[in-house]
């Protein structure tokens, strides 16, 4: 069986819709991972021990196991405890939580890198601990960790392909649908790889721009 790329145009709309979903899932999961990561970082650094410990166990478990396994846990686990979420929500939550743990590590180093004198100064000026954290420390920490978080988000785009395994119709699953009726796996998977590569290039360019702006604001 040779290669025949002429089958592609007929299925192009399915593939392009799949790309749109991949981008939306990536954005959604990125938002979850950013907010979740910040939340986890603040807990890891400032919460009392009995709150910190279960979160640390969660982070430990999520860093030491594969994303695909976590997606199975979240998708089937939520159903088991009676929360019947659509696959796409499970996918966004799973991807988001996975990367939240990695982002949290970055935020923690970012927060710790902010000079202690600044917290003291903020407290002296009459800000509460929470205010000092929210208005002085966190904004600076975010600025410092934007480049490595950008790397995580690019990794997230590529890992979003995994949610196809739990049945989310994004780019990878769209390709599988097209392959199901054409039996042309090579052509469609190469096409999909090219699309991921293009999105990847755009994300890298965006990351460079943001980095330059961050550098300038320093």
């Amino acid at each position, binding site marked *: *069986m*040779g*290669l025949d790329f002429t089958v592609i145009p007929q299925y192009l709309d399915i593939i392009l819709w799949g790309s749109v979903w991949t981008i939306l899932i990536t954005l959604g999961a990125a938002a979850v991972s950013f907010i979740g990561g910040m939340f986890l970082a603040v807990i890891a650094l400032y919460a009392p021990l009995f709150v910190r410990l279960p979160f640390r166990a969660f982070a430990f*478990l999520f860093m*030491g*196991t*594969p*994303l*695909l*396994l*976590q997606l*199975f*846990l979240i998708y*089937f*686990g939520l159903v*088991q405890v009676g929360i019947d979420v659509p696959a796409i929500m499970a996918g966004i939550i799973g991807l988001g939580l996975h990367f939240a743990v990695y982002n949290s590590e970055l935020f923690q180093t970012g927060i710790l890198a902010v000079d202690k004198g600044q917290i003291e100064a903020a407290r002296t000026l009459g800000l509460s601990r929470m205010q000092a954290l929210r208005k002085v420390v966190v904004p600076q920490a975010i600025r410092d960790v934007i480049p490595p978080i950008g790397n995580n988000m690019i990794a997230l785009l*590529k*890992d*979003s*392909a*995994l949610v*196809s*395994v739990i049945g989310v119709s994004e780019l*990878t699953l769209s390709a599988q649908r097209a*392959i199901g009726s054409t039996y*042309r*796996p*090579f*052509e469609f*998977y*190469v096409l*999909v*790889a090219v699309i*991921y*590569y293009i999105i*990847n*290039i755009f994300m890298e360019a965006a990351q460079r721009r943001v980095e330059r702006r961050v550098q300038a604001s320093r």
Partner: protein
Amino acid sequence: MDFELMQKVFPFFLEAAWITVLLSVLTTILGLILGAVGASARLSRFALVRFLGAAYVSVFRGTPALIQLFILYFGGPQIGIQLDAFQAGVIGLGINAGAYMTETIRGAIIAIDKGQIEAARTVGLSRFQTMRYVVLPQAMRLMIRPLGVNINAMIKATALVAAISVVELTYTAQRFIGSTYKPFEMFLIAGVLYMIIIYITGQAVSWLDRKARIS
């Protein structure tokens, strides 16, 4: 928590864990070889070879490993590559890991002070000898830890071969979740086994790193 069930399925998970270990070892070996070749290409004197090295890294780091695996396993037969799922898993993941390791190895080599290379060349060593006796021994020490990070990520990436039905840990967990509806229990068993594999690998890397620092 259904401990009785966990005990009953545990032997299946243990067997699957060996497949995960085997996959990880073979993929690491292939990744290191390709990483060394890739790094040499990226540092080559010839522009075309440098370009090929850069293209390898860019393409394989810029697309999902899952898709690379699918192209090889499902698309391979169309271009005359017939592999069983395990072989496709090792080769696919190995090529992917190689791209990441290329950057790690290259990073360690270019971190060696240029003055040392110039000095070695001045005292009459050839380019090859400079690499062999001056740069590599030092770069080796620098690359152990970051390569450990690559290997850690790669062990977790072996879960992807579950999608092409290799019976390793994640595939086994998926099967048992499907048949028992006990996702937490199955996740816990597979998760602990993964963490043991990763912990032992991490210890081995630290040991190598310490040994390299003493010498």
